């Protein structure tokens, strides 16, 4: 098995000497990450294929014919910042510049909101640091009407989809302009208009719903497709299995994304993955074409997304994509990774930083420069600060300006049933 993403744990020999006659006592195997706090981060065992090496099959290929793609990594940007190989060449300078901009906005927004949370303006925040390319690039493969079923770490879908930063901040602040009326935890956005399904705090539940939405589109002879999102850790949940079963059986027009950012809170990916080598491998058990892509390579993510979406649109059925990336920040503002991984592990991550890699590529292309980058960074910061300020004008979590207790009683049902009316009365609102 060629697995470019092997952590040291999986290299430990699985075989034990076969003993005769009597059996030796059994032992429980508990996978461990290569390094723990105090150790020196080391990803040298991770084999990353050179950019451009992996073939680009026809979209109507058989899953079996491309099973190697579930154990490799599709990459477009090489070390020199050039776009190479069969998956390159789909995006213009303008498109790439837009992509860079989206990632930079997401990063700046994250930084501001992270700080806002620390300042007590809201209760909670989750950032995307290191994973910006995945959602930003994927979004550009979609068409109006397509629907994402995201987790909490795909705000790039909103930003690249043109959703307003002010509305995002209002949701995070649970203020009077919060489109979700203060009902949801920060970052649990919802925007039907922007093809962004309401985020559930429960992991994985939305994955099977994406398949259902796609089946509905097929039932209605529509042309829209659905996109499911899940983290590496959450693939262990039941809904993941249900999604693969139903997608495979009904050949649903859905793209099923796994964002493998190496960690699930404090738990390294080896616990959810077990002995399969990769998460993409899960798709092979269902006859679903499964690809792995360099999630820190904007061009690669976009190219693979395009390929998979085209399959779905052509009624060729589902595709499973594992985005190989790294969660640079803490899991959320409630987490401190220093307790479970070396502090500098992110610096050792071999796939680099998605923003810097795209920036370098654009410079190599002659479409960008360090100066323009700095300038843009400053501009973007201004934009983000302005949006934040505007949102703060509508209140922050603990301010007086917040959704009313009345809003709490609305929307449980389309029409409020008598018992809830009585309760609202009792609450005096």
């Amino acid at each position, binding site marked *: 098995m060629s697995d470019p993403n092997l952590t040291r744990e999986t290299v430990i020999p699985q075989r034990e000497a076969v003993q005769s006659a009597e059996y030796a006592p059994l032992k429980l195997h508990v996978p461990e990450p290569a390094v723990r706090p105090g150790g020196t981060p080391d990803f040298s065992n991770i084999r990353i294929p050179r950019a451009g090496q992996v073939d680009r099959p026809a979209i109507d290929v058989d899953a079996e014919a491309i099973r190697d793609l579930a154990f490799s990594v599709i990459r477009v940007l090489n070390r020199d910042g050039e776009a190479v190989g069969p998956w390159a060449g789909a995006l213009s300078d303008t498109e790439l510049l837009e992509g860079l901009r989206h990632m930079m906005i997401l990063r700046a927004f994250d930084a501001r909101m992270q700080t806002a949370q620390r300042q007590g303006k809201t209760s909670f925040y989750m950032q995307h640091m290191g994973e910006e390319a995945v959602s930003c690039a994927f979004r550009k493969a979609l068409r109006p009407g397509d629907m994402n079923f995201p987790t909490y770490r795909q705000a790039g879908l909103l930003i690249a989809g043109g959703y307003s930063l002010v509305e995002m901040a209002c949701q995070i602040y649970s203020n009077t302009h919060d489109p979700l009326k203060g009902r949801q935890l920060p970052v649990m956005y919802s925007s039907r208009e922007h093809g962004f*399904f*309401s985020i559930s705090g429960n992991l994985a539940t939305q994955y*099977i*719903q994406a398949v*259902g939405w796609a089946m509905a589109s097929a039932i209605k002879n529509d042309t829209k497709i659905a996109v499911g999102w899940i983290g590496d850790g959450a693939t262990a949940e039941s*809904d993941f299995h249900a999604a693969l079963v139903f997608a495979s*059986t009904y050949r649903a027009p859905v793209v099923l994304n796994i964002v493998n950012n190496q960690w699930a809170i404090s738990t390294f990916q080896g616990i959810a993955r077990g002995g399969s080598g990769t998460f993409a491998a899960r798709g092979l058990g269902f006859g679903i074409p499964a690809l792995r892509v360099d999630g820190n390579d904007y061009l690669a993510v976009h190219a693979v997304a395009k390929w998979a979406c085209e399959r779905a649109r052509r009624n060729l059925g589902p595709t499973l994509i594992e985005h190989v990336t790294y969660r640079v920040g803490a899991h959320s503002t409630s987490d401190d990774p220093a307790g479970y991984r070396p502090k500098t592990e992110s610096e050792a991550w071999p796939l680099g930083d998605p923003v810097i890699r795209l920036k370098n590529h654009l410079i190599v292309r002659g479409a960008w420069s360090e100066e323009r980058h700095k300038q843009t960074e400053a501009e973007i910061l201004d934009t983000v600060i302005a949006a934040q300020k505007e949102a703060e004008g509508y209140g922050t979590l603990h301010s007086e300006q917040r959704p009313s207790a009345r809003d709490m009683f609305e929307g449980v049902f389309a029409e409020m049933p008598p*018992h809830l009316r009585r309760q609202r009365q009792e609450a005096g609102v």
Partner: protein
Amino acid sequence: MTRRTMIEAIRDAMDVMMSRDSDVVVFGEDVGYFGGVFRASQGLQAKYGKSRCFDTPISELGIVGVAVGMAAYGLKPCVEIQFADYMYPAYDQIVSEAARLRYRSNGQFTCPLVVRMPTGGGIFGGQTHSQSPEALFTHVCGIKTVVPSNPRDAKGLLISAIEDPDPVIFLEPKRLYNGPFDGHHDRPVTPWSKHDLGEVDDGHYAIPLGSAAIRRQGEAVTILAYGTMVHVAETAVAEVGIDAEIIDLRSLLPLDLDTIEASVKKTGRCVIVHEATLTSGFGAELCALVQTRCFYHLEAPIARVAGWDTPYPHAQEWDYFPGPARIGRALIETLEA
């Protein structure tokens, strides 16, 4: 007007709705080609095609999960869980997703979904073909819970459920599928064709969710029941010869509290009957509501007659089932209290 069994009435409701609204889709385990193990969807695949009525893999989670996605898209799925006892794998999708979607998305996404499931005992189904999990639904805000007791109601309530803009759990007492059940398992079964409520209007009609039906007017005591227990209570009342008022709740949430309150205030006594295990059953909520609302009118403690707090056993089915004798005893005690 046609004489129909409860299964036929349920099938008719789906048929009427599928023909009126192309967004209505029906699926579940064995539901497509074969028409369901209780034959509720028989003929629907032949009539509406495989993409409107189909078989699913054995995954209750998957059935409800895809239904939530379809409902968010704009369809109106009416899905079957083969037995209520098998709804647990779908419980997360019902509670955390279907029930919450409108609220958490502030109405951007909604979930007009019906989950049908056969409930209750009386067919020697043992612990995994006999459960009545209604209280596990009534505790969950954002879903409605309906339990019909006869073919006429079943059709009208199911049509309302399918038309409802929110998720509805539709519990079908399987012991009533072929006829009303008087609680005496050793007597011959009466078919629905011999019962008034087996007369079912043709075409479309809706019975609103949240309105109870008074099955028997009476002055001495109020009986609150639903599903199979409505008929068993009727038997008990006849047998002990008491002038009880029998209220068939039909819908547990929303609940027709006005009808309940008026009746208990009139009779001053109340007996609640259900087949589910006693502790934390829906009877507890009814009891709590009645004692608050009617405290000063109550002349005796409210009694609950329910399944015992044990799994539903196979051989001891009729020891477990809250039959006419137990209800009768509770009625007499309540009147004598």
